[in-house]
């Protein structure tokens, strides 16, 4: 029998007992929609967690740290080498020292970072007040966090802009000798970060005192996928690297378990549905025994009979899977809308709790298809093996 005829016949059989077909399909719908709903929640939470840690830009960024090994130093020649690695689009060194911020009526602790102007762009640091960048590579300027200013009672950012302050930079050399340098700089920009204390200054300003070796170097790649390759190249030069991607990978690996557990609940429902399919087909087998006898008597092969039954199970799975996917997805979308509506109306940020990736939708429908087909195999084999004459006599 041609496949198209098998499908025609199976579809006709499903239509013949509409109520039973609908009920059996509903079983699959419940199972699949539960899986889609719960796993989409998992994906949504995962996206939420990852986006809190890193925006997409951060995943193209690699931090190269100073090597502990003898003879491998993170200096200007290393930076030039990094620049020559294919797919690297930006390299920005970083110096960091513990420092004190000193104003006429007090002082507070902070960390002084010496950076290039383009560093702000790489790290996605935006000053909310004043300038977003330095006027030059060695200007006497600083961009500081609100946190640093609090320590010296300069709580109003508007008045702090343009003030000249002294940064006392502390350098601890290899033999534990403590050196201190004072640098005067004008506050040109302020970030809203009030939990962390830091002050960015042009690298040229700080490297006057030291500057031969950098604490770390930021390397940006064109695409996220380029990261691993660039990272390998740099690590093969002997420099340890870190990336936000490491954290994100960890979170992702945890969420794999979360999704399996959530999917597992739905899987239980799907198993019940599979038993339902098995049951439906077994009853159909009894009902249609006489018909199977006729089909065999007029020249139907055993395989034709088996195919018709299997196709019925597969169709139930395909319909149930598709409707289940749509149901689970729509439910998630509705809850997203509701949550976003509530969140934005109380002034929060809109966030999606449910997210259904396309590949997962495809996977879940295929899964329903396969499970249902498997559930249909046994009744189909029984139907195929019926003795034609006995089946004909069966009323």
């Amino acid at each position, binding site marked *: 029998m041609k496949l198209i005829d098998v499908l025609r016949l199976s579809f006709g059989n499903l239509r013949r007992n509409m109520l039973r077909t609908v009920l059996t399909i509903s079983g699959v719908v419940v199972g699949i929609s539960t899986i889609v709903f719960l796993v989409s929640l998992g994906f949504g939470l995962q996206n939420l967690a990852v986006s809190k840690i890193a925006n997409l830009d951060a995943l193209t960024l690699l931090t190269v740290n100073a090597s502990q090994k003898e003879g491998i130093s993170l200096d200007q020649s290393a930076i030039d080498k990094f620049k020559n690695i294919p797919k690297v689009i930006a390299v920005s060194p970083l110096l960091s020292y513990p420092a004190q911020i000193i104003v006429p009526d007090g002082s507070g602790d902070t960390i002084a970072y010496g950076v290039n102007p383009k560093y702000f762009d790489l790290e996605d640091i935006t000053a909310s007040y004043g300038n977003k960048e330095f006027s030059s590579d060695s200007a006497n300027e600083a961009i500081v966090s609100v946190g640093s200013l609090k320590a010296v009672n300069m709580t109003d950012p508007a008045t702090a802009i343009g003030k000249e302050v002294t940064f006392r930079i502390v350098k601890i050399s290899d033999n534990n000798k403590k050196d201190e340098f004072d640098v005067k700089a004008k506050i040109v920009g302020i970030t809203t970060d009030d939990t962390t204390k830091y002050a960015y200054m042009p690298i040229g300003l700080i490297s006057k005192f030291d500057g031969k070796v950098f604490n770390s170097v930021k390397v940006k790649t064109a695409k996220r996928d380029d990261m691993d390759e660039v990272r390998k190249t740099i690590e093969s030069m002997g420099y340890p690297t870190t990336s936000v991607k490491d954290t994100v990978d960890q979170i992702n690996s945890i969420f794999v378990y979360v999704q399996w557990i959530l999917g597992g609940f739905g899987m239980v429902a799907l198993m019940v549905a599979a038993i339902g399919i098995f049951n439906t087909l077994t009853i159909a087998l009894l009902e249609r025994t006489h018909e199977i006898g*006729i089909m065999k008597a*007029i*020249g*139907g092969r055993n395989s034709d009979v088996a195919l018709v039954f299997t196709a019925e199970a597969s169709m139930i799975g395909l319909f149930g899977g598709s409707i289940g996917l749509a149901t689970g997805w729509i439910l998630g979308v509705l809850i997203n809308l509701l949550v976003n509506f509530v969140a934005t109306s109380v002034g929060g940020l809109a966030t999606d709790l449910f997210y259904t990736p396309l590949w997962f939708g495809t996977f879940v429908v295929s899964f329903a298809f396969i499970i249902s087909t498997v559930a249909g195999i046994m009744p189909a084999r029984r139907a195929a093996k019926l003795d034609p*004459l006995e089946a004909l006599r069966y009323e």
Partner: protein
Amino acid sequence: MAKVPVFKAVNVSKIYQLGDIEVKALQSVNLEIYSGEFICFFGQSGCGKSTLLSLIAGLQKPSSGEVYVRGEKLSALDNSGLAKYRRSKIGIVFQSFNLIPSMNIIENIALPLTFARVGKKQRMERAKSLLETVGLTKYSNHNPSQLSGGQQQRVAIARSLVTAPWVLLADEPTGNLDTKSANEVMRLIISLNHRSKRTVILITHNPEYLNYADRIFYLQDGKIIKTQVNNKVKDAEDLEEIKEAAEQAGAESRAEDLSAPETKEEIKE
């Protein structure tokens, strides 16, 4: 006769095991049936005539002995070989019509061609022409339950002929029909034999029909007790009421289209 018989049964026995009791449905039956013959199996119920027919149709296997079809052993065929044999070489008509209730008339007729992987357009055309032959064109899209018994049986005959088989096997095709319908059906079967030279094996217990057969095998207790050769075979037209019924069914005008199975192209698979 030097011809190879269409069917040949050699010492065929069939024993059913019902619990501890052995039922000998057939005991050492020998027969030969030749191309173009109209054969009747005649006997009381339980005499084994249906069993014999089902062995010839390959619907079951004999307990001992062998059935040959054109010289080939039927027992040599596996399940799918038997399915192909039933699909392409023989057509079967049952007492209880055995149409599939969920399919309409035209689909029922085309079903054997569906199994033979014939395309939809082609098989529908063939089914349509057979529906015309049995005079039920306007019922094409009806369901079997909407037709009378006689009409259903004519559909069943159309179905049995759709693959242009050598042989028509009919197991009491008129058993469930009133006289008028029975005559319609018999007229069709007789004309299939007389006009299209198709071999027909008819099971009946209506003695009236025996006059139309070339040879009659009388069965009793699983044995062929008598073989009778009919020297003066009646033509279907001899029976006036049958003729009338046939005209109503439009069978006469179409009978010549049912060309002899030997000349018909075999259904390719």
